[in-house]
């Protein structure tokens, strides 16, 4: 892969790598005795690995292929494999921490292995490791195809992908050491946050530069979503992570906000990490891969517009519904609730748009597990956005908040929507990228589908049950007007559901392992085939004047 880079690009890659390595050395030296020192060694190890890839190719001759004749897919390929590895790590951690709640002895007495330290490895591993890599990989694919233009350079896509993974590795290794700022979905400390800003700005510039090269006057729907994802995540990340480090050579920092303002900022971020990381980006995937796989145009262009602007505008108001009945002023709580309910309209516009697109292609859903992944993802998207709006209603939230119902809800979204649309896109993409006739094993895709679906359903039902029981037990009064149950009673009632949840998660994890195996086998063993037309319009091997719309 590296040998496709020009000599100048390879040298730049080497220089960047050395610069980051020196930063790692500085962290290790100055932060000696603090957790930052240990994080410095992680950076050094990561850069050493990168150097091991780059160094052997430094003296290689310049590549001879005509760059304008093809799309640049190497980073997409790497991103998919890395993403699938993160899926296995993140979901594996999830099964482990779930099992710990049923059997607390499963931690083996290390300081690093308590629920509190491993739980963020699970959430970040799945959301940022798996989700983020698949988002970056698919966005590279989608933007090139829908613009019918190659990416402007070969270095910056690699910088974004590998730089982003450095962030993920630093974050995950930090959690087990005890480096965290405790903000949900934003746990990494200040130096990792600053690094992510550098990577993310490069990502946005890369996106804009590719759009500027497009051979298609209109920017395709999927790109609007990817762009909203990149821009708003940057906004959320920067504001929520404003903090003052306790020392420039230590890992600890303190949030710029406190109490009420911090809570509101955190949930403005937290809820919109769901909106713009876990929804908008994946809707970009849905809007490209689902019509493509079903070989049907999007059902309604206008519905896509309505959905897009509705989501972009409404979601940002909805975060405060996480703070019902708290010390947050009530007018903000009410605004959050109102907008959360309205949010159902643009959400269902997209879910409906996706399902209506399948009209006339339902026989394909039956036969093709890849398309079925996408279809079920759209259904779960509709279900969990309905549940989300419902749970934002004040009295309902009073019951559901702080219970497993919330956990069940976010997992219906994460497993049913985010993971399934990702798996569907990966199965659609892998044969295309590696120029294969299809996935290595269609049967394994079927197995993965049913394992994932069964796992999700078991998990979500277990958490609905435990959450609602928990919420009701907390507020049950006996005849004398006193509370019927102690907190401990409700904890004991959770035990069977925690076992069921672990089992559901395990099924889901097995599915993901099968998926990783299948992708690897597709790369190595599946028979080759050139796709019909897969090159930029600007290339010498040009297409007819008016190619079929993407």
């Amino acid at each position, binding site marked *: 892969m590296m040998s496709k880079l020009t000599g100048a690009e390879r040298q730049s890659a080497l220089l960047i790598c050395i610069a980051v390595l020196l930063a790692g050395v500085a962290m290790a030296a100055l932060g000696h005795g603090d957790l930052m020192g240990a994080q410095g060694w992680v950076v050094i190890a990561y850069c050493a690995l990168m150097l091991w890839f780059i160094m052997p190719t430094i003296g290689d001759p310049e590549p001879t292929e005509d760059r304008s004749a093809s799309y640049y897919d190497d980073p997409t390929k790497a991103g998919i494999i890395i993403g699938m590895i993160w899926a296995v790590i993140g979901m594996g951690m999830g099964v482990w921490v779930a099992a710990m709640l049923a059997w607390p002895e499963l931690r083996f007495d290390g300081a690093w292995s308590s629920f509190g330290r491993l739980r963020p490895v699970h959430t970040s591993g799945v959301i940022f490791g798996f989700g983020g890599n698949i988002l970056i990989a698919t966005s590279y694919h989608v933007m090139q195809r829908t613009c019918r233009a190659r990416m402007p350079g070969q270095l910056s896509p690699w910088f974004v992908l590998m730089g982003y993974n450095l962030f993920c590795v630093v974050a995950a290794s930090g959690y087990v050491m005890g480096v965290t700022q405790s*903000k949900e979905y934003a746990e990494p400390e200040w130096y990792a946050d600053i690094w992510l800003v550098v990577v993310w700005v490069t990502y946005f510039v890369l996106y804009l530069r590719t759009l500027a090269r497009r051979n298609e006057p209109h920017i395709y729907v999927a790109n609007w979503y990817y762009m909203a994802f990149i821009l708003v995540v940057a906004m959320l990340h920067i504001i929520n992570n404003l903090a003052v480090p306790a020392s420039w050579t230590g890992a600890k920092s303190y949030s710029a906000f406190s109490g009420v303002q911090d809570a509101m900022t955190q949930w403005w971020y937290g809820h919109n990490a769901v909106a713009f990381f876990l929804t908008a980006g994946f809707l970009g995937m849905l809007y490209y891969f689902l019509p493509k796989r079903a070989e049907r145009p999007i059902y309604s262009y206008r519905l896509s517009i309505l959905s897009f602007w509705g989501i972009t505008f409404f979601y940002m108001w909805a975060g405060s519904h996480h703070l019902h009945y708290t*010390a947050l002023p009530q007018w903000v709580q009410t605004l959050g609730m109102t907008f959360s309910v309205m949010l159902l309209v643009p959400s269902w516009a997209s879910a409906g748009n996706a399902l209506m697109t399948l009209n006339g292609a339902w026989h394909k859903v039956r036969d093709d597990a890849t398309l079925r992944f996408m279809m079920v993802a759209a259904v779960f998207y509709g279900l969990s956005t309905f549940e989300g709006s419902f749970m934002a209603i004040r009295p309902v939230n009073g019951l559901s908040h702080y219970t497993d119902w919330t956990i069940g809800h976010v997992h219906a979204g994460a497993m049913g929507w985010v993971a399934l649309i990702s798996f569907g896109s990966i199965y659609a993409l892998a044969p295309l990228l590696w120029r294969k006739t299809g996935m290595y094993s269609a049967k394994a895709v079927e197995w993965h589908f049913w394992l994932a679906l069964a796992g999700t359903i078991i998990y979500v039902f277990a958490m609905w049950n435990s959450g609602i029981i928990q919420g009701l037990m907390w507020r049950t009064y006996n005849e004398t007007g006193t509370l019927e149950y102690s907190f401990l009673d409700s904890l004991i009632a959770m035990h069977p559901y925690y076992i069921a949840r672990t089992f559901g998660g395990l099924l889901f994890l097995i599915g993901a392992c099968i998926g990783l195996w299948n992708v690897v086998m597709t790369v190595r063993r599946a028979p080759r085939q050139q796709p019909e037309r897969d090159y930029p319009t600007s290339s010498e091997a040009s297409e007819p004047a008016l190619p079929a719309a993407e």
Partner: protein
Amino acid sequence: MLKDLLKPFARFFNFQARTHYKAERHSIALALGIIGAASIGGIVEIAPLFTIDSTVEAAPDMRVYTPLEQAGRDIYIREGCYACHSQMIRTLRDEVERYGPYSLAAESQYDHPMLWGSKRTGPDLARLGGKYSDDWQVRHLIDPRDLVPESVMPSYAFLQDAPLETDSLPGRLAALRAVGVPYTDDQIANASHDAIGQAMPDSTAAGGVTERYGEATNLRLFDGSNARVTEMDALVAYLQILGQLTQLPYEIEPKAEE
């Protein structure tokens, strides 16, 4: 009837579609549109919280965390305790009856970051301070199932063997002052000293703690041992002050919702 009703919406919708048809040809216009649409909600909901006086009520007796308590809070964060224990009693009747007076904004005004939490695998801790003895807290942290057989909490026995790192405390307090916690120069300069003094009441360092943080400060051997100041000391000192930084919530009449 339905058609007439929907007419204004349809017109708006058509207009939007036409405008959009133009906008989606320009990447910068699209980017600015996204930033604009996404900014409004945050500006309306967050910005006023910093200026409206009623956001945080005045609590004249509110005190800051001592260096030892702040160190304990940092350990609480490090171990991810917030993932299972909330620190926010909502204005619901059953919560007020179970845990105590509901939480006020003033109580977390020096909390950077807040630890209101979003999940209760274990009970809420907002009123934990003073509820159990130090000995109970220590034994519970060493082996939760020793005291509560059904508990699913991890054990934190290693805290007892970990000496508390106090050198970074002046820097920590200074950073907290930079974000708005009113620590004095004196408090910052003596932070390491005070942390040790608070957990060793017989040492000479102890005198400065009451001088700087008030007579009501807990001055004890939190982990029961005089040998050295451990992370256990710090965490227990923090747990014992939860809900005790101000007496305001206990003074006002709770008006919990049904």
